[in-house]
């Protein structure tokens, strides 16, 4: 199965996903999968594609931003809102170069996501390896699941 990634030039500057939105996306994706026979990604169609996962303690956001310098990325977190912006610039190599293909996306981007729970902005960690940005966002203490002991 060959999947070609395309970036439709929709002017979507942020994507939020409330619980409802998430259900809606999942439904759409299932519908798409059923009709096209293709396991389509449920991407928002904007750069960069990101995956969000969670465990008991943290949210993890991973975004595919190949070939960028950490200084070109700007990340901010307020309460349960995380935004990632930056500008991907592909320098023109030589004066006399003639291009045969130019497919790699470039330009400014800005994505903001609203997480289901608040995070502790002080302890957010960002790492950049092999073109993937990984944000580790610790959930705020008050929203962490707690084991409640039943007293007899």
């Amino acid at each position: 199965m060959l999947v070609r990634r395309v970036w439709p030039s929709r002017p979507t500057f942020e994507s939020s996903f409330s619980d409802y939105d998430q259900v809606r996306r999942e439904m759409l994706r299932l519908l798409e999968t059923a009709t096209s026979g293709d396991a389509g990604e449920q991407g928002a169609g904007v750069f960069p594609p990101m995956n969000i996962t969670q465990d008991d303690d943290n949210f993890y956001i991973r975004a595919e931003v190949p070939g960028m310098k950490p200084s070109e990325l700007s990340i901010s977190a307020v309460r349960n809102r995380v935004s990632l912006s930056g500008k991907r610039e592909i320098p023109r190599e030589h004066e006399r170069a003639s291009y045969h293909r130019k497919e790699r996306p470039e330009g400014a981007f800005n994505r903001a996501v609203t997480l289901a729970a608040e995070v502790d902005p002080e302890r957010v960690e960002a790492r950049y390896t092999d073109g993937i940005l990984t944000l580790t966002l610790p959930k705020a203490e008050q929203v962490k699941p707690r084991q409640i002991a039943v007293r007899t």
Partner: protein
Amino acid sequence: MATEATRDVQKTQQSTVAAAPEQTRTGPVYSPAVDIFENDSVITLLADMPGVKASDLAIDLRENVLTLTGRVTNARAGKESNVLSEYRPGTFVRQFTLSETIDQPKIDAQLTDGVLRLELPKVEKARPRQITVRSA
């Protein structure tokens, strides 16, 4: 002019799909976005392969067909559950046909921050030469 030059690096995407060797790994196969440009002495190919480590990248050249294969290993740890999934770990594969004018032993590859840079030097005789006309 453009068509003349394009002959040096040709995409063999169509034929690849038709005669694609079956993947032994499950998961999607992506076609990485590439930039290709050339100057008088070298053809440069840049490919976006986020998540691919140098050890998981294979560049194979046989019978003038250049195959780029990059594997992405799943970055997530065991206990994480999905909240939003816009991309899946898969394999980046793309093939190009190189012409005879590439100095194949001198091909140089470098992978930095998920971007592959492949320098394909042209053989000496294929480089354009300026011929000065002498007056008698």
